[in-house]
């Protein structure tokens, strides 16, 4: 019988700690598919964040490093500068990347570090039980915004791709989603492009993946996908915010 579908080779065959309905699994899979298709598992070093994907080092088959909270881009910078011919990526959540690690994110982008960042945005601190994240939407109820996020008190959400697209060092800033099969395909293409950029030494590439957190959103997996489409995607429009390929001077 012909095998038509199997686990990517670079995705380790273990059970995961992610909650039912969480979209981390899809993102892990498409990232590993890209690594497999490019045949780069043996030349890739990944950096984990602190957050829900803190233990992703057990799931990705390439060499892995666990970074302090928010510091993954700095750790990746150290790895890449010492090993410019290897592929280096970070896998980070919104609290890690856009709150405690904002400086590391912005400066690795502006230096044009030749790394890939997979940025999983689900608008909450999942691992610690659903507190307000820098990307939590106005009005969204979380453990630390029990009456809804009020911009007058807690300020506004951060739009990461828009912000990083203003920096000269950013080669690719693209926001994708994993709410539907076409969007998953698009997300995988973006990740592939980010790794191709690294291969061609184009500089900093970030793929922001809008993701769900059924557990902390208090919704079923399908309701969470609906919320992603109806509330999250309008606030964080999908698209390519920066692509150096399209520029004449690079």
């Amino acid at each position, binding site marked *: 019988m012909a095998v038509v579908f199997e686990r990517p080779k670079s995705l380790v065959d273990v059970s995961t700690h992610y909650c039912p309905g969480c979209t981390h699994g899809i993102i892990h899979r498409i990232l590993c598919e890209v690594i497999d298709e490019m045949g780069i598992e043996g030349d890739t070093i990944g950096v984990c964040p602190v957050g829900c994907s803190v233990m992703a080092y057990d799931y990705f088959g*390439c060499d892995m*490093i666990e970074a302090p909270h928010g510091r993954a881009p700095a750790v990746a910078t150290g790895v890449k500068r010492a090993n410019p011919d290897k592929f280096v990526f970070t896998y980070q959540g919104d609290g890690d990347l856009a709150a405690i690690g904002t400086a590391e994110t912005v400066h690795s982008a502006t230096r044009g570090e030749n790394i890939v960042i997979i940025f999983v945005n689900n608008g909450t601190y999942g691992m610690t039980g659903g507190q307000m994240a820098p990307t939590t939407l106005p009005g969204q109820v979380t453990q630390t915004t029990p009456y809804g996020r009020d911009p007058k008190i807690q300020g506004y959400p951060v739009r990461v791709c828009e912000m990083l697209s203003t920096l000269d060092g950013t080669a690719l800033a693209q926001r994708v989603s994993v709410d539907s099969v076409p969007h998953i395909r698009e997300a995988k293409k973006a990740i592939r492009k980010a790794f191709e950029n690294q291969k061609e030494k184009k500089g900093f590439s970030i793929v922001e993946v809008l993701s769900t957190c059924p557990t902390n959103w208090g919704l079923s997996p399908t309701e969470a996908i609906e919320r992603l489409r109806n509330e999250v995607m309008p606030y964080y429009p999908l698209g390519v915010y920066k692509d150096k390929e399209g520029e004449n001077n690079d």
Partner: protein
Amino acid sequence: MERKLMKGNEALAEAAIRAGCKCFFGYPITPQTEISAYLAKNFAKAGGLFLQAESEIAAINMVLGAASTGVRVMTSSSSPGISLKSEGISYIAGSDLPAVIINVQRGGPGLGGIQPSQADYWQATKALGHGDFQLLVYAPASVQEMVDMVVTAFDKADQYRMPAMILADGFLGQMMEPIAFPEIKSETVEKPWATTGHGNKRAHNIVNSLYLKPEQLEKNVFERYERYEKIKETETDAEMYLTDDAEITLVAYGATARVVKSAVNMAREQGIKAGLVRPKTLWPFPVKQIKEAAKSAEKFLVVEMSMGQMIDDVKLALNCSKPVEFMGRTGGMIMKPAEVLEEIKKIGGKK
């Protein structure tokens, strides 16, 4: 052997290059900035990488990343910057990574001042970050030792898979002395744990400090402390100056020890049997050497550019068997030999 007149910070930077350091990540802060400036100018020519980070926090995490791939890597800072690095240093220790960290101490707390200080002793030897761990801590007292100790620090960090610190001060960083660069025979240590890409030839390596199962974390810490016990036996180092017959023994490290040595000489000229124990490693602390000095010494006098931090370790080493007095200046103030001599007389070394 070539001899050169060099500033402490620059000599240290040159020695790091010669010791096979491949990457340096730093952030500007007085009084250590010459290390960065020297490396910015000379490191690339020698095949190294200098990168100015956006913060001390980023710099130490770049060190973590480079160290994970097995290359020799260094960062340097001064007191307030070391506080910022403490998170990363704890992770480096918890991930069993070798790295060299320079602290050219200045006055504190807070922004403090920019003059020499030794007020980071506790931080370096007791609490450089959260959790159960130690750093190797070397205390140079001359520009030559800035050179020699950084070479040792790289070797020992690799050998024991742990961070090593050079605890210098603004004095040593800024002053010039003639030095010789020794022929460096740095040991090459195999690093099968390094995350350099498995090349499809081995299982994936993971550099990590997270152990959610308490029994695993305890086992991990126990293993590290077994290593620390070996280090205590083999790596402890101190200079013993006229301690054999000393009745009053002074204990001082770094730049302070130079002042104290002069005071000991002055005391000897006046017939007072004074001696000096100068710890060259602050962790591991030279307990045996202090005990050895206690065979003849009736009293101890600890001199520090702080309000008294190393004195704790001297008291612990003596286990309250001898009186231990303290003399200190702080905030960037430096004691004079004559003042130390007065203190020796006041405490009363027997004639």
